[in-house]
């Protein structure tokens, strides 16, 4: 097996909660708590999970838009977590990001041309003329026209804006694109356009994606492998077919069953899980899902399950499958 393009080990992000006279740290929001995974070159890793489970935080830490509290990120053989912040800034040429809200992520006062040219300027690529040309080329590549260049973001539709966001991510010829909920803000019909575009670009430019979303349908469509997060932890990660056909973690099962299917005749067995997601500042002991889990065992409240491979290409962190399975 070839070395993966990106390897993440034991990534953690604790946001301090400050208190008191001298702003002493009194606790932590464990936004991401010991997450490890890898992404191979040319593949798409989907990450799903409910709001607030730490998906974005993970994504941002990969680019060091947030400094990890702990853990290692190795990209293309380089350990990103240990280089200087200026080197990191330069390294961002190779890792780019596409954001959830295409409108919010474009400066409303800049023209599209300026928005697209900026990454090139920042990384000192080309001269004014070649930069302009590149901007226009990429506008075409994402299905827009060069005459759009002088317009402002608000003059585009949601789908077009997301294309601009993707074009910007592509400007510096990155190897890895982290897409943080790139289609969640879009309509179904527009969403389809963007998903198709992303797939086409991947083939053409041999891109690697980390695709963060909460819509399991979308993730299934685009991902080769899928990781499921719950409360700052990766609870299951598997090849996409395996995960959807045979979800192992009770949370994954519940999640899959909760997704409404556009077919009035489809009758599914809904696992309605009770209650809300607990607060990451005060996560439940043991398995963090035990408060909502229909299969809770005693051990779940005490021991944190480890993410273990239970079949080839399928890992899960649940006591139902580990050594405590029979208890």
């Amino acid at each position, binding site marked *: 097996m070839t070395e993966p393009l990106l390897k993440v080990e034991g990534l953690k992000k604790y946001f301090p909660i400050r208190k008191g006279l001298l702003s002493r740290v009194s606790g932590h929001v464990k936004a991401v708590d010991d997450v490890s995974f890898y992404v191979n070159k040319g593949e798409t890793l989907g990450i799903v999970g409910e709001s607030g489970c730490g998906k974005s935080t993970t994504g941002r830490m990969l680019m060091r838009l947030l400094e990890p509290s702990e853990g290692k990120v190795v990209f293309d053989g380089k350990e990103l977590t240990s280089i200087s912040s200026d080197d990191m800034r330069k390294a961002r040429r190779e890792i780019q990001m596409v954001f959830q809200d295409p409108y919010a992520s474009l400066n409303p006062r800049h023209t599209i041309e300026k928005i697209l040219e900026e990454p090139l300027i920042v990384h000192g690529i080309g001269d004014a003329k070649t930069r302009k040309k590149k901007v226009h080329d990429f506008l075409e590549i994402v*299905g827009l026209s060069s005459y759009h260049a002088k317009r402002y973001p608000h003059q585009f539709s949601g789908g077009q804006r997301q294309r601009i966001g993707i074009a910007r991510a592509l400007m510096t010829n990155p190897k890895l694109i982290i897409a943080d909920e790139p289609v969640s803000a879009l309509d179904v019909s527009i969403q389809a356009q963007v998903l198709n575009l992303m797939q086409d670009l991947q083939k053409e430019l041999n891109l690697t994606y980390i695709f963060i979303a909460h819509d399991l349908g979308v993730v299934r469509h685009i991902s080769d492998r899928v990781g499921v997060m719950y409360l700052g932890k990766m609870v299951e990660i598997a090849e996409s077919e395996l995960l959807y056909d045979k979800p192992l973690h009770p949370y994954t099962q519940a999640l899959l069953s909760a997704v409404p299917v556009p077919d009035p005749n489809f009758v599914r067995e809904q696992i309605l899980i009770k209650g809300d997601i607990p607060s990451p500042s005060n996560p439940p002991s043991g398995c963090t899902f035990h408060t909502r889990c229909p299969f809770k065992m005693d051990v779940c409240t005490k021991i944190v399950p480890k993410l273990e491979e239970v079949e080839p290409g399928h890992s899960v962190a649940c006591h139902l499958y580990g050594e405590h399975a029979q208890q």
Partner: protein
Amino acid sequence: MVGFAPKPSDVVAQQDKVAGPWHEAWRSFKKSKVAVVGAGIVLFFIIVAFIGPWIAPQGINEQNLPNRLQAPSFDHWFGTDDMGRDILSRIIHGARISLWVGFFSVIGSVIAGSILGIVAGYYGKWVDAIISRIFDIMLAFPSILLAIAVVSVLGPSLQNALIAIAIINIPNFGRLIRSKVLSIKEEEYITSAKAIGMQDIRILFSHILPNSMAPVIVQGTLAIATAIIEAAALGFLGLGAEAPAPEWGKMLADSKMYLINAPWTMIFPGIAIMLTVLGFNLMGDGLRDALDPRMKS
């Protein structure tokens, strides 16, 4: 070529012609009637400021003591002041100085306030604590003392009055910008700018600054009036227009003794200031919208 060729309908949503940003701004500015009226007023005063010396019926400093404090008449439309000078002519000449004072002192404090406010808001932590506390000090500090200090360092002059007023107003704008920056910096497009590897300086001035100016424009246009009046109030410190220059604020201040006996000495300069501020204000509101591409539908 991948993706979809945009069908013509793809661009139906945007019928407006492609145009430069200034053209765009101008177009939407024109749409607001209020803003155009405001711009008209400001333009009027600017023109007056430029061609004043040619259109004023009389010189600015033609003293005629026997003819002092004449009520408005056919010869002197706005009456004469306590030196027998024609008030209309002085107001016309004064436009240049007063606009200069009002406008540039505000610009000065906006620039300094913006820089401090942005740095405080963006970097937060101790930088913010220090700058904010400096603002606290400046706010609680009597402006007279500050002005006296300015004279003693820089000497008396109109420019230095401008500087003094600018300094006095820095914390007002600084605070305003800071609070705006606090929310802007959480915007996704700032994160996205960082994500493409952008340097802080560029983020600050190319992205955060233009997006946090709206409240400042509104506040700034109001501040023009206060600046003109303050400039006159600092006159006794030697800060202000050099006599006998016809500065509106000073004309107003000089009218104090004749408030009841010769009210025209106060009414006309007062109206001039008010109209200017009205103009700047209306224009400011329009400008704020015009410079924001989003306001154009």
